[in-house]
């Protein structure tokens, strides 16, 4: 917990967070006036459940973005990992084996991304974009249009269960928030990731093994996608070839509105948690106000542009001050 609080650095960062937390509260307040359903226990728990799933995916992506990269393949990664894990669980009846498969698949994809970007020096957006389509095709090939559904009760608790009246994914979110905060602020690896993101040249001259750290960061992003796929699978209780496509934009939006800069070196996992909550609140609000679900991609896209606009403007202001 100390690490989480420490990641809230004084001054500029604190005010940045304050404004985002305030945004969450204002939207929440507005929604509780606009809709009778919003401020019910069921809906609030639902929001937290949704946000924690988004956070699990976005937390790994945060590390990649901190290192000035991007991982556009996470949605596709979640889909393939979920489908593989689902079919293993159906075949063996063992959630543990499914979990191993999902985590291994997610990490393997992450390592490939890392090798493409760090060792083969491809631009991260095009390498992971190519990987996204490659994985999508593999998933379709593997599933051949079929749906896997009906998983053991115990496994489903991971996504839809409660512990002390709080959804299980929320505990996972808090656990991985803590781990990610420890990683970024208390380990040398985390500090090196910030260094790589803010100034790769000076990072190289100070002896940071940039390539290995980049592979690590992409591997962690893949690992988190694998983990998210398990929670996703447990919650949906079914897996299909096309479940990953709508996940990438929200994950990127959560990272960016959480204050992590696309230019690298600035941001925290805690910010991403706020970002995930903010986005989930907005989408939940659209839903409660009976606004056509077709508006959701529009709103997510607009939020991404606004977030990167705010990021860029504040960066230019800082440069002007310096």
């Amino acid at each position: 917990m100390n690490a989480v609080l420490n990641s809230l650095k004084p001054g500029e960062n604190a005010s940045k967070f304050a404004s985002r937390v305030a945004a969450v509260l204002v939207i929440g307040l507005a929604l509780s006036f606009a809709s009778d359903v919003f401020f019910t226990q069921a809906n609030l728990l639902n929001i937290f459940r949704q946000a924690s799933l988004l956070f699990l995916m976005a937390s790994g992506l945060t590390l990649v973005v901190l290192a000035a990269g991007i991982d556009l393949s996470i949605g596709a990664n979640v889909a393939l990992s979920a489908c593989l894990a689902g079919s293993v669980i159906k075949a063996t009846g063992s959630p543990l084996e499914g979990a191993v498969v999902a985590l291994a698949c997610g990490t393997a994809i992450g390592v490939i991304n890392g090798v493409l970007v760090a060792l083969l020096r491809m631009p991260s957006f095009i390498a992971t974009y190519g990987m996204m389509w490659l994985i999508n095709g593999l998933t379709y090939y593997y599933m051949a249009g079929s749906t896997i559904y009906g998983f053991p009760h115990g496994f489903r608790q991971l996504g839809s269960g409660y512990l002390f009246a709080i959804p299980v994914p929320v505990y996972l979110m808090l656990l991985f928030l803590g781990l990610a905060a420890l990683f970024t602020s208390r380990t040398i690896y985390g500090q090196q990731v910030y260094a790589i993101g803010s100034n790769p040249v000076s990072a190289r001259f100070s002896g940071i093994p940039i390539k290995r750290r980049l592979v690590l960061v992409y591997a962690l992003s893949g690992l988190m996608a694998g983990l998210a796929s398990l929670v996703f699978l447990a919650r949906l209780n079914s897996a299909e070839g096309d479940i990953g496509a709508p996940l990438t934009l929200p994950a990127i939006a959560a990272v960016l509105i959480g204050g992590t800069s696309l230019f690298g070196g600035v941001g925290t996992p805690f910010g991403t948690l706020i970002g995930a909550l903010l986005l989930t609140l907005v989408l939940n609000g659209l839903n409660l106000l009976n606004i056509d679900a077709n508006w959701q991609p529009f709103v997510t896209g607009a939020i991404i542009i606004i977030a990167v606009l705010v990021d860029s403007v504040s960066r230019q202001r800082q440069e002007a001050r310096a």
Partner: protein
Amino acid sequence: MHNVQALPQTRPWTATVGRIPGVAYMMVVIVVLFSSLNRQFLDGANLINIGSQGSILLLLALPMTFVILTEGIDVSAGAVAAASSVALGCVMQAGGHTWLGIVAAIGVGTLFGLFNGTLIAWLRLPPFVVTLGTMGMAQGLALIFSNGQSITDIGTVIPALYGGKVLGIPAPLIFAIVAYALNHLLLYRSRFGIYARAIGGNPEALRFAGVSAKAWLISIYAFAGAMFGIGAILLTARMSTAHPTASLGMEFDAIAAVVVGGTSFEKGNGGLPGTLLGVLTIGMLRNGLNLVGVPSSVQVSCVGVLVLLALLIEGWKTK
């Protein structure tokens, strides 16, 4: 020193091989592979089919080349084409004139392009994330205005743009030839093209020459949007319906064609002849996979492999 004059004759054969663009090898492999797997592949009718279907991709890939030459990217192409297609469908369904529908489609594309260009050039935001945001917005608008349904009531004039023939030549091939010729003139014989290459290759020189790189960059994205609109018209004509999701993902084929054609994401290297070969490569790959019964949703994996291969070759060359 005495053998300096002999040098040109003794160039090792590997150097000659290295000068042949990677896309040529890919094309040979694809032609040999699929013509041996399926006899129909090299039929005249199938080749015309590849050309006709490739014409839509070409309309997206040509402007994508301009964008990538500026060290940019436009991942919103497929979604913008979807919005343009829905705009065309809505006008036709409401009984509007065909020209009005065409103007609406191109107009919607241009507006999205202006939006992208302004954010990228004026506010200096990274192109891939801006166009990713636009992708979501355009996709949303296409779904909202079509209610998520395909619009089938589009009259008979639009479908004839794809199905018709002029002097025995299929209309889409004529569109492709005209579009290629115009884009070629634009890139190699006009200021627009010179500046497009300079923005990626040498932006400093533009600044010293007193050229407003921002205005030109905005116009490049706007031009790309307009071309996506034209591509959407041809796609709508081909399907005889305006569908809000049919063109989603086409941006990947367009980007793939450009990358496979040898245009690099750095320093404004590459050009339209490569993109033309890239479009043919992707078109033959998809057509061949169709003939051997691989569904389209799985074909994207092969396109993905092709893109990563092209990037690898590019990396080796620059090393």
